[in-house]
């Protein structure tokens, strides 16, 4: 893991403008931003860890906890909202037995994210599992998809 991190950092100059791209690259390979990663970035950019957290926590994209094997994103955009996106979200929560406030299942199989809009509104409601986009999702389809991905 450490080697990867150094490789990523080596692609950038020690310029604060690179902070967000660095965080994005690290999260891409490690899945989330660990305290160790933040520490290493802070040494590299000569910034305090606090400064880095203040930027990272501002943006919805960054995560600070270990993620599940599969990421489920349920769209909560307007078109999805009027076409029942909330019911899709509730169905996923129910099927994954997620308690309020939790986004990752205890077995680290799935992480659930609510997303503002994917821009695939014409096919609302939309759900994305890993990098696969599914349109016109129904509650029945949710159950089927979860079962499929559980086996993968």
């Amino acid at each position, binding site marked *: 893991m450490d080697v990867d991190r150094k490789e990523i950092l080596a692609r950038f100059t020690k310029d604060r403008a690179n902070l967000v791209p660095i965080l994005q690259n690290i999260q891409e390979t490690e899945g989330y931003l660990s305290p160790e990663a933040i520490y290493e970035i802070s040494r590299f950019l000569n910034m305090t860890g606090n400064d880095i957290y203040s*930027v990272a926590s501002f943006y919805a994209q960054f995560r600070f906890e270990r993620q599940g094997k599969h990421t489920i994103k349920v769209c909560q955009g*307007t*078109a999805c909202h009027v076409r*029942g996106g909330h019911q899709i979200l509730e*169905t996923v929560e129910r099927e994954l037995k997620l308690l309020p406030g939790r986004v990752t299942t205890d077995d680290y199989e799935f992480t659930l994210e609510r997303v503002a809009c994917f821009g695939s*509104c014409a096919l609302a409601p939309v759900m994305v599992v890993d990098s696969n986009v599914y349109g016109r999702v129904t509650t029945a389809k949710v159950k089927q998809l979860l079962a499929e991905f559980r086996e993968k």
Partner: protein
Amino acid sequence: MSLDEIRKQALSESAVLEQSKKTRILIGTGTCGRAAGAMAVLETINKELAQGKIDAVVTQVGCIGLCYIEPLVDIIKPGRPRICYSRVTPEIMTQLIQDYIINDNPRPDLALGTIGEESVPGIPKLFDHPMLKPQVRIALRNCGHIDPENVKEYVANGGYSGLDRALKMTPEEVIAEVKISGLKGRGGAGFATWQKWEFCRKAPGKEKYVICNADEGDPGAFMNRLLLEGDPHSVLEGMVIGAYGIGATQGYVYCRAEKPLAIARLRVALKQAAELGLVGKNILGSGFDFPIEIREGAGAFVCGEETALMLSIEGMRGMPKPRPPFPATAGLWGKPTNINNVETWGNVSAIFQKDANWYAGFGTKTSKGTKTFALAGKVERTGLIEVPLGITLRQIVFDIGGGVPNGKKFKAVQTGGPSGGCIPASLLDLPVDYESLTKAGSIMGSGGMIIADSDTCMVDLARYFLSFCQAESCGKCVPCREGTGQMLEILTDITEGKSKPGDIDLLLQLADGIRSGSLCALGNTSPNPVLTTIKYFRDEYEAHINEKRCPAGVCKNLISYYIDPEKCQGCLICLRNCPASAIAGDKRMIHVINPEKCIKCGVCLEVCPAKFSAVVKVSGKKPATPEKPIPVGSWGKQ
């Protein structure tokens, strides 16, 4: 290399393709196409190619905007017109390959339309399709027609000729040309593009920046995604033209990370343009340098606001700054900066490829040209359209969009996303231009249009938008941070049946404060959805507050489900699917929902077979139903 040489190369490549007498297959693989299953269709085509069954050139193209009948596949056989097929599945693709490509039967039963001069008996012209006919495609001119990952196809279709023309003009002439076109910023505010450029040109400073705002974050909007996925070069070309007019030294495209395909296609386009000397150093031998960098947003809606976006590029929290100073004088890193959105840049390249007067010939006196709109929600034909400004909402919703599906009644159209408003049926003949929409209490915005029908609760919709703005508020200024929170609490109370008389007035008061007191447009405009729904749908608010009833049957606390004992046939389907085990019943016994256990998820309504339609949703008083399951047919006979 000069543009003439690049064009010659591009044209000879397409001539070689034409002479090869190979069939061409174009498949739309934008995000919408993928969501509808385009990748499985592509796999089928590739499999047949690999088996040697057919010899064809396959091109992945962007989306033509007919999202509701995706996936779309076009087949061009040598000497035959181009035929577009819609709702293609792997099975249909196999049939088309067998019947049309191998046996020369164009299958009019499966075809949507032909593109081009010639026609095929039994197949209409694609651009006579009701969704396409009223459109004028300027920004979207190439979407769905060219391979977005091949710069040569863009050049062969007139691409970069606008840049070539601009570079032969003086920067002042470039700005004058934009002034003639009448182009206004397509990101929402509608500021005159030429004026913005001139402010930045005149601002003192050696280093200047040009930014393309592709942080399309309004829920319900996908105009920029579609343009970047389908024709990224048109945006890059526009940026270089603008940079030349302004005298900028560096460009950035700030793109939302939730649109990964747009970013990927943009990266490919940028690399190809740089290789041909169309961006970067000494562009087309003119001596003008303009490198462009791509920055991915990290999921903050407020970064669509220009000052926040610039701070985000600098590696800071994306919190808006008070203006003045305006970005034109002190923007990115304190240097003069010009920022326009994706569609604006796409129009700039079109204006220079043709001419400003031609562009100004579309639209109205004060709102010139065309605008793209994303149609979604409760409308028959969802997708992306481009129409001349001044067209009426009725034409958009009914002629192009095909009206509301399933025989439901049109209620409102929401324009402008979280900053916009809801426009009711009585204003359907309103012309769509910057001034008229503002007068109605909404805004043009970037172009999202969500259609609401009788099943959409306007109070819930207002609450939805407000919860979005509340969550996305950066927290810097109090009116936005605290005010939207207070409004959201009141609205939540209303939708949950806990409201008090006087809540509407309180909402109006808060809205006024937030409107005038917030630092940036996110806050200023956040009350718009609430204000317009109160203005046009006050009766719905009153039903929630006074009668604790949701007329549209949406607000969970105010609705309940029951099973009609006259219709239930005791089939067990709802009982088995109920996630809360709230339904009692047996085979041939009338099922009964236990209101104590019911979580109002609506699954029973969804799964009840259409021939029975026994599950009913009500808001208000529920009719009498059996207390426990009784045999089918025995209700009312005791």
